[in-house]
């Protein structure tokens, strides 16, 4: 086994030992929520829907038409990511409260009732219900 493979294996063991399956889910959901937020915050105007400004413009230019500095933009992205991490934590807690995390297997998720419970956990946090 090459050094890289050895390191990868050791790192997976290290991660699971300290954070478990819940930690893996939290990291995955943080990354996903961040991608979703960045996707939506880089959308263009939609005159048919009554949206006359690009959020992809407003992400980089403030209300006084001044461009944010690279440091300000990086800080804002870091803060957005932190908020996504908080939301991911809430989703994982909802799944834990429903005792769903230990049962997350392919057969389990194909059960419509279970899939609905997982969807509800995501939806309640993402829609702010």
């Amino acid at each position, binding site marked *: 086994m090459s050094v890289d493979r050895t390191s990868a294996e050791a790192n997976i063991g290290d991660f699971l030992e300290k954070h478990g399956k819940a930690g*893996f889910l*939290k990291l995955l959901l943080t990354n996903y*929520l961040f*991608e979703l937020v960045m996707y939506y*915050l880089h959308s*263009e105007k939609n005159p048919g*829907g009554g949206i006359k400004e690009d959020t992809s413009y407003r992400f980089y230019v403030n209300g006084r038409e001044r461009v944010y500095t690279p440091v300000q933009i990086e800080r804002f992205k870091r803060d957005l990511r932190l908020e996504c991490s908080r939301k991911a934590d809430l989703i994982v807690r909802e799944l834990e409260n429903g005792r769903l995390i230990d049962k997350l297997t392919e057969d389990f998720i194909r059960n419509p009732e279970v899939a609905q419970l997982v*969807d509800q956990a995501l939806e309640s946090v993402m829609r702010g219900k």
Partner: protein
Amino acid sequence: MRLGTSRAAKAPPTRRWNDVIGTLKAPNRNAETVASVALSVAMSTLPEISPVSTPIVFGALEGIRFVLDVQEKGLEAAVQREAILISERYVIPSISEGLWYIVSSKMDQRFTNSPFGRLAQLAFTKTMDQVMSKGARALIAEET
């Protein structure tokens, strides 16, 4: 608007999206408010959550199954079981990409090929890369 070679998606078709623009234009824009309002408004325009949830749920299942397999049987056995081709030069990315290929093969292609499927792919491969390259530090870094 052209952004390099890609094209930005249109804003969600609701006037409530102007609330998101308002949070971005605020003098001291607040990331918590921007993220919460953007997700809430965007999700409210979708008739159901499954196009958003399905790709990442399948990714979660495969990711968890794989890391537990590695913990129990070792990386070589886990990789062989999945028939993942590893590039010796790019070991970690090739495992992550190989795993996503398996995830996508288990899902309806309308989910895989959707914008949410592509975002889930980015999140999944990044997560696997982080776990395999940083170990426990991958999550600790998120919390600081």
